[in-house]
Each structure stands twice: as C-alpha cells, then as structure tokens.
C-alpha cells in the first residue's frame, strides 16, 4: 500500500483522511511494515465502508487486514440506528459467526508425546471434516427452531457440554434477538446434516502447547502455564450461515436504491437498521450466530469424547469462545455519550478490556481472552483485551495472521503431501481429507502472525498473553 496519503497518528495507528464520499476517516492499526505490505484494495475498502450511512467515528482496519469483499477482512465499523445507520450483510459475510474456541486439557506436553499419533487418528475419525462430511445429528423442525434461538445453551441442554461452558462464551452462549422466522427454508435445508461439522478451507481443530507466556497475571487468570496442552477449534455457522448471507446480500443489493443507499461496491449491500429488511436480517443473522455457537459446542463434545478415549478421565474445560464475523448491538461511549451501536466485525475479534460487565468473573481484572488462530506450522496466540480498547476501535482486535498469497499461488509453491511430511518431521501431525487443501493452507501462505499480534499489542487493542505451538491439526 502506498502510505503517502495516510496521516500517522502513532507508531501503530494511521489515518486515511475523510475525502469524497467518506463520512468519517479511516483508521488502520498496523506497523509500517504490515501497512506497506497491505494491498491497495484495503484502503479502498476502508474508504468505501466510511461512506455508508450512519457510520460512527471511523472505519477501522485491524493489523491483519487484507483485501476482502465489500469490507476488508479485519474491518470494524459501528452504525447508529438513530442516525439512519445501516446493517450490512456484506459487512458480516457468508461465514456468519465464524470463530475460535480454546479448551484447556489439564495435560502437559510430556503427557501426550507418546500418544500424539493415536490422538490425531482418533480426533480425525470423530470430527467430521471437509467437503461431503456430515454430522450424526439430524434436527427436526422443532429442534432446529430451538437451536436457532438457543445457540450453545440449546446444545448444553441437549447434553453437548456443561453449564460451566456457557459462562465462557460471548453472550453466555446465546445471542438475543434471533428470529428463526427470518431464516429461509433453503438455509435450514443446507444445515440439515451439517450440525457438528468442521467445514473446510481454513477451518481446523488443533491440539497446541503453551510455548511461551508473556503476561503471567493474565495467563494465571486464564488458567495457563507454559507446557500446558490446549485444543482450539476454528469454524462457523456452516451451510445455514452461508445461505443466510447469500439470501440477504441479494435482497439488500436489490433494495438499496429504493432505500436511497448508493453502494460504492455492491458487496457492501446493506439496509437501514430500522427498516423491515434490516430487522429481518438481524433476526436471521443472530440465528446464524446461535447456530455457530451450537456447532462449536457440539464439536467441543466430540473433542472431549476423543480425548477421553485416549486419556480416560481427562476433562476439557472451555477457556473462551470468540466470534469474528458478526454484527452485534453494543453500548459504547462516543465523545462522552453512551450510544447503542451496531458493531460490524468482519474478520475481527471482540476484545473487551478489563472491568467490562460482559466478562466472566475470573477474567474481569485482565480483560477478555482474544483467540488468534495460526496456520498449522505457525503459532497461535492468546491475547487479552486492553484497557481503553473500546475508545480505540469499539473494543476490537485482530483475528489471525491473514493470507499473504492466493490459494493458487500456495498450491504452486507447495505440495500437500510433502508439507505434511515436513511438518511431521517437526513434530506437527496433520490429518486432512485433501492434500491440495493442506497446500492451500500452507503456513507460509499466511502473514507473520507474530508481527500481527505485536502490532495489536503496541496499538493498545489487545495485549499478548501466551503463544501456542501446534502439535496436531485436523484440517477440514
């Protein structure tokens, strides 16, 4: 990216001044190196988002920002319904409530070394992964309705997990305002046999070890010590969310002109929050968030069963669950006034700081866990929402490394089988139905996740707590 038109606000904060149709400035949080490596399209997309009606304060991009569709991946924007603000199906995307959850295992690296291969095989056998895989759960119409309203709470009531899990999920496992009546029959049908499935692409279940602790106090609050074995699950709302995105993007694209909304890019399809279409989308999108939370809860249950088969008696308590493709109604202070805003996070993680009322008691003093996914051979990170982050970007931080090259370029550079062998030689066991899928997700196809979390830390969005090294990865 050509940074000459950006105004430097600090070492890790850059302003794209409001110009043309922009209603507010753009703000990109990144080091100079990360910024220069970003595609020009990121600035263009940040500016496009800044032109949408009712946007508040700024159009933000996180340090892992890259060229998305409509919003940049890593984009954050808040809208005020009282100021003709909009909700954007494009600003949430197809993979509604895609997110990460991390479980503790109570095991140490030495406990699992001798059983790693068996653990990988058992997990791969029990976790439905990849195209064509189906879950064992079939929901009838009544159960589907209950799942869409109840999220992870429904899953726990159906014996997939414990009540203690719910305290460690955003919104305690169920977002309010879900309206199953706004979910199409197509979306329901697409979800029919996809409950409890991982999906494909960059979705995974990974067994990890805490390789370094940066913030002992926060790590203590999160129950982490160097050498601890963890499990992280990255996936979303599966076919139901994809279809809701498809349905409402189409409807919003067609309805925008009549609503007086000039879209700089049709992928930014949106509707006034107060309109019937905006309300229907919110009802359906929230149902998809609940579907994602239920899905990750079922996968958690399957992971627990797999671990119990290899390590009888082991327990896997939930550390936390974050979603990074959402629009959530939140209260934020803006210029000294409390406002109810609709915060879009597209490839960005909610990162509430210490003392926020939403946090579980044991995390209140250190801030919300922010779970940053890696890419097989690279590290993942656990961060903590920083004090003051709500004033910086409505309580948001990065979500992952972000791709550095296209999938095709990755398959041109790497062979999946060779990659699996190379990683195995480094002690990282990969199980996947597709070698090409592994090559497309090659560790070096992603940016340096270390630089991304460093920038999030220095920008005051979320502070580093611990680095996690991969041991076993089930790729979809």
């Amino acid at each position, binding site marked *: 990216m050509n940074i000459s038109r950006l105004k430097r606000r600090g070492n890790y904060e850059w302003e794209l001044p409001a110009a043309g149709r922009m209603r507010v400035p753009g703000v990109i949080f990144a080091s100079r190196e990360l910024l220069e490596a970003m*595609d020009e*399209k990121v600035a263009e997309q940040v500016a496009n988002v800044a032109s949408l009606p009712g946007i508040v304060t700024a159009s933000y991009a996180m340090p892992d920002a*890259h*060229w*998305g*569709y*409509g919003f940049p*991946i890593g984009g954050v924007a808040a809208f005020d319904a009282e100021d003709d603000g909009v909700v954007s199906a*494009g600003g949430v*995307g*197809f*993979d509604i409530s895609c997110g990460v959850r991390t479980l503790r295992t109570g095991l140490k690296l030495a406990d699992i070394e001798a059983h790693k291969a068996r653990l990988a095989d058992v997990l791969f056998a029990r976790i439905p992964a*990849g*195209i*064509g*895989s*189906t879950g064992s759960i079939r929901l009838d119409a009544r159960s589907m309705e209950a799942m869409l309203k109840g999220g992870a709470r429904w899953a726990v009531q159906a014996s997939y997990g414990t009540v203690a899990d719910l305290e460690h999920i955003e919104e305690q496992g169920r977002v309010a305002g879900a309206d199953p009546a706004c979910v199409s029959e*197509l979306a329901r*049908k*697409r979800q*029919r046999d996809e409950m409890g499935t991982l*999906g*494909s*692409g960059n979705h995974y279940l990974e067994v990890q070890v805490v390789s370094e602790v940066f913030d002992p106090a926060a790590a203590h609050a999160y129950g982490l010590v160097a050498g601890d074995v963890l499990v992280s699950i990255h996936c979303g709302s599966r*076919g139901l969310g*994809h*279809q809701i*995105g*498809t349905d409402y*993007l*189409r409807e919003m*694209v*067609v309805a925008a002109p009549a609503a007086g909304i000039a879209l700089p*890019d*049709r*992928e930014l*399809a949106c509707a006034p929050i107060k309109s019937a279409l905006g309300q229907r989308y919110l009802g359906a999108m929230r149902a998809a968030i609940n579907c994602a939370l239920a899905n990750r809860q079922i996968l958690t249950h399957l992971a627990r069963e797999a671990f119990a088969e290899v390590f009888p008696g082991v327990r896997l308590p939930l550390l936390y669950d974050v979603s990074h493709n959402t629009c959530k109604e939140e209260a934020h202070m803006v210029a000294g006034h409390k406002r109810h805003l609709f915060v879009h996070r597209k490839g960005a993680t909610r990162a509430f700081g210490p003392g926020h009322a939403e946090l579980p008691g044991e995390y209140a003093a250190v801030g919300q866990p922010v779970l940053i996914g890696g890419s097989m051979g690279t590290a993942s990170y656990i961060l903590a929402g920083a004090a003051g982050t709500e004033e910086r970007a409505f309580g948001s931080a990065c979500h992952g490394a*972000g*791709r550095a*090259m*296209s*999938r*095709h*370029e990755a398959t041109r550079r790497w062979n999946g089988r060779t990659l699996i062998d190379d990683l195995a030689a480094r002690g990282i066991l990969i199980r996947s*139905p*597709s*070698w*090409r*899928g592994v090559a*497309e997700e090659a560790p070096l196809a992603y940016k340096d996740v270390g630089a991304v979390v460093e920038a999030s830390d220095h920008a005051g969005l979320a502070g580093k707590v611990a680095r996690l090294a991969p041991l076993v990865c089930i790729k*979809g």
Partner: protein
Amino acid sequence: MPENARPFLPLATGNRRCAAHRPDACASGALMQWQTFAHEADVGIRGSGATLADAFAGAATAMTSVICDPDRIADRETVTVKCAAPDDELLLVDWLNALIYEMATRHMLFSRFDVGITNHHLTATAWGELVDISRHHPAAEVKGASYCELAVGRQADGQWLAQCVVDV
C-alpha cells in the same frame, strides 16, 4: 473486457467443448473457457465463450475447479437449475449460488453444464456425481458467490465474459 473488470493474470485455466445438448443452449461445439484469478482472501472465477451462456457455463466450471479438478468428476447424474434476476450480473451470482446450494444439499460436484439464457432468465442442466473424498480430494468448500469483482459483458473481440469472487 468490461470496464470495471481488472486485468487479472489468469491462474488455473482450462477449456472444454460446451455440452450443447439443446440448440439454444450455446453455440454448437463452442470452446468454453474458464479460469481462476487471484484474490487475497478468496478466489476469483471467470468464464468466457462465444455466448453469454458459454461464459456462464465456464464460470461454473471455474467454480468447480476451486473445489477439485473438474476432470475427476464423472457425469453420472443431472440436476436442473432455474433462476431469474433483474440483470445479467445478478443472474451470474444467482446461478453460481444455486449450484452451491445443490452441491451442499445433494453432496454432489458438477463438471458439465448446459446453460440457456433468455432475458435474464436461466435454465440449466448440471452433470455430476456424489462427492467421493478418496477420488475427488476436495480442497475447499465454496460458501457463496460474492458481488466482488462481479462483471458480465461482451469484450472487444466479441467474446462474452462472466466473473466474480467466490468465498471459500
């Protein structure tokens, strides 16, 4: 190339004879071309051909290539797809999303397409088979066709082009 289409370098490319099972489906025996183009997070797909229908069929093949090698998919079963839209760009997105839905709910992959388009109304037959992980090695699921880099139009050389970015 339409004015709003960036001159991307093609990545994977291919061509095959159009299905042409109906006289109005596409120019008989026309060479239907497809390719994917780079997008940082996802994948761009593009079809081109002598007719709009050829270009749509090529775009569908390009989408299949995001998942697996289209030549690995046998044409054992057919599925009929119908859609209509206010313009051809929206029709392309609707066509691809209809295929994504059929793939997801039937657990099928498609490799051959017989497309007919009249006044923004599309009727098509897609040939394919059930997903066989051991033979198809599907790499990534397509979640939806986006409006990003969406373009449908006739190029200076008379060839039709249809493209967009799909989310994987």
